[in-house]
Structure formats: structure tokens, C-alpha cells
């Protein structure tokens, strides 16, 4: 199993172009604010953020695979580690940790200590059901679907709702097991060659 450490994530992060974090945070805040004004229903906004994230994820996966230069993941555990250590680092500049694996290895939790999307944010009382960072769920779901892994991603803990950190839960969808053979073929087709 190829080893993936935080160093590869750091190295890639050092080489990609970066944008001002405050600009990013304020832009995302403006998007959420506008969605709330337009849609008014908190659940609708959650869905819309997820959908936006999905659209971003389907495009982001190509950039990730191109820049990260990693080898093919053997199983879902490795995929999750890759997302947490390399993906989050590359795009958000934060490192996440993967915990709480279930017995079958299809469900895990990714914990983020800090989240640049929510700097300065405090949810008002009228928006208590809002998952402010729901776009992240959509991004991961969309990206994994493009490499033929159907997953469901949900929030378990959210600092804006009073918890101490951000925790996402990934479920590998069992119903798509028959796609495994096909997905292996796809991975072989699109994977980068191993750097020697």
C-alpha cells in the first residue's frame, strides 16, 4: 500500500496557486447569505449547497488527480485517507484526520479541527438548521462519484451548532458493489503511472 503522509499534502499545497483566505471566506459567506435570501427555507439552502458542492466536486477531481500525482487507491480506507490528508490540504489548507472506522470498512469519520469557510461566522437564531459548510459534503460526493465510488456524506458535528469540531461521515454505498469490477477498470484507465 503506498504510504500517504501529511508531507505529500504539504508539498502539493506549497506548489499550487493560493487565494486570500479572507476573500474566500467572505465570498462563501455572501453566497450562503444570498441563498438564504432567495430560498428562505433552511432545508432548501442545505440542498442547494450540497448540489453546488456536487457540481464543484465533479470538476475538482480532475485537478486533484492531475496535481496530486498519487497512485491508485486500493480500497476505501485509502481513499478516505487520501481525501483527508491530501485533498483537504491542497484545496483548503487544513489537514483532517480519519477516525471511527466501522467493521466492514465502509463508513468512517473525518474530523476537521479548523475550517476556513467559517471564520467570523455566527449562525443567527433564525437559521439554526443550516449546515453552513454543506458544500463540502457535495464536493466529496461529486468527486468520488466521478471515480465510480458512490458515497453519502453527512455532517455529524458542526462548530456553528455548538460542537467542538467539524466531523463528516462517509458511507460507501453497498448497493453499488456490482460496479466494483467496472470501477477498477475505470481506475486503471485513468490512473497516473506510479512515479519510480
Amino acid at each position, binding site marked *: 500500500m503506498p504510504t500517504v503522509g501529511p508531507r505529500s499534502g504539504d508539498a502539493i499545497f506549497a506548489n499550487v496557486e493560493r487565494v486570500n483566505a*479572507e476573500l474566500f471566506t*467572505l465570498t462563501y459567506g*455572501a453566497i450562503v447569505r444570498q441563498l438564504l435570501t432567495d430560498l428562505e427555507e433552511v432545508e432548501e439552502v442545505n440542498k442547494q449547497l450540497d448540489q453546488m458542492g456536487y457540481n464543484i466536486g465533479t470538476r475538482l477531481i480532475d485537478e486533484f488527480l492531475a496535481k496530486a500525482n498519487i497512485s491508485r487507491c486500493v480500497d476505501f480506507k485509502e481513499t478516505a485517507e487520501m481525501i483527508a490528508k491530501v485533498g483537504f490540504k491542497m484545496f483548503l489548507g487544513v489537514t483532517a484526520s480519519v477516525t471511527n472506522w466501522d467493521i466492514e470498512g465502509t463508513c468512517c469519520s473525518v474530523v476537521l479541527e479548523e475550517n476556513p469557510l467559517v471564520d467570523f*461566522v455566527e*449562525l443567527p437564531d433564525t437559521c439554526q438548521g443550516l449546515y453552513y459548510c454543506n458544500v463540502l459534503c457535495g464536493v466529496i460526493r461529486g468527486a468520488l462519484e466521478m471515480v465510480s465510488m458512490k458515497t453519502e456524506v453527512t455532517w455529524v458535528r458542526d462548530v456553528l451548532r455548538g460542537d467542538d469540531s467539524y466531523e463528516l461521515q462517509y458511507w460507501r454505498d453497498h448497493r453499488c458493489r456490482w460496479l466494483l469490477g467496472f470501477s477498477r477498470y475505470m481506475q486503471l484507465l485513468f490512473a497516473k503511472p506510479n512515479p519510480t
Partner: protein
Amino acid sequence: MLLSRVREERSLQAAGTRQRATPNGCATISRVKNRGPAGLDSASASAVEEEATKPEKMIVCIAVVGHQNNPLYIQSFTEADDALKLHHIVHCSLDVVDERVNNPKKSGPLLNETFLGLLYPTENYKVYGYLTNTKVKFILVTTDLDVKDADVRNFFRRFHAAYVDAVSNPFHVPGKKITSRTFAERVSTIVKAFGLSSAG
């Protein structure tokens, strides 16, 4: 003698204090300016007494006022005083701010527009003002009889930082009151730090 000795010790403890123990042991308590070598004997004696019995180095109230003189945040820190009286003081000080802004005392490139300094002393309060670039005013009301300029400037700098973070919240509507709980907590931390740093 005992009281003046206590005062001397306190002034020595406070780092960088401008209090100089004059030969007869009386410290200067000036109402309008913090400089000046000697105060009146009776004034300083009574002030020393007050200092020794009741160390009132407290911020009574701070207020954030928008550029149209609409209140955005008012927080008082003593239970004793009437909230209405504090509102009145803050309101009066806005006139002084407008006056200072429209008639600058010295014009030129060296004019530091942000910190307005002591606006006016009233009864037992002192009122300080600070103007941001967006014409938002911070008003500080304190019962501190001896407060250093540097402390107040420091206070306003930290308060400004907290204000900027509160306003960056996407759910904050500019022009409406600040309802952020984090802001309130940060402000009370800054106020406590101010009280501790200027205490002798």
C-alpha cells in the same frame, strides 16, 4: 502619611506609569490632562484617599455608534449606574465627536484621525472617542481617574479588531445592531484586561 505611602508603592509597581512621587508623597491626579508635575494638595489628598479606599479603575460603558449616529452596540459594565444616564452621556459625546471631526485642531498630514482622545470630563466620568475610517465611532466611558493615553489607545485598537471580526460575519446586517455573542465575550475580555493592566 500611610495613604500616601500606599499610593507611592502602587505607582512604583505599575510599569511605565507617569505617576511621579513628589517629595511630599502626593501623586498627581489631574482631571483634564494626565501630565503636570504637581496637583493641588487638597485635591490630591482626597484623590489619594479615594484611590486607597475604592480603586475605581473601571470602564463603565462602551458604545459603538454608526455613521448616521445610530447606536450599534451599547454595553455597560456596572450595575450601579443608570443605563439611561450612560446613554445620555454617550449621546452628548457624539456632539463633541462631530465638532472635532469638522474643526480639526491641527491640519496637516500628521493628523491621526482615528483616536480622538479625551472628549470631555464630566462629573466623575471621562469619555474617550475613536473614529474609524467608515465613520463608525467607538465611545468609552470610564470612571478611571488616572488613565494612560497608551492604555486607551491599546484598548481601542483591540476593540476595533473585535468589531471588524463581528462585522465580517455574513449574517450581520451593516447598520443594524451587533448581536454576536462572540463579540460580547471578546469585549468583556478586553475590558477586563484593560482594568487589570491599568490597575496599580
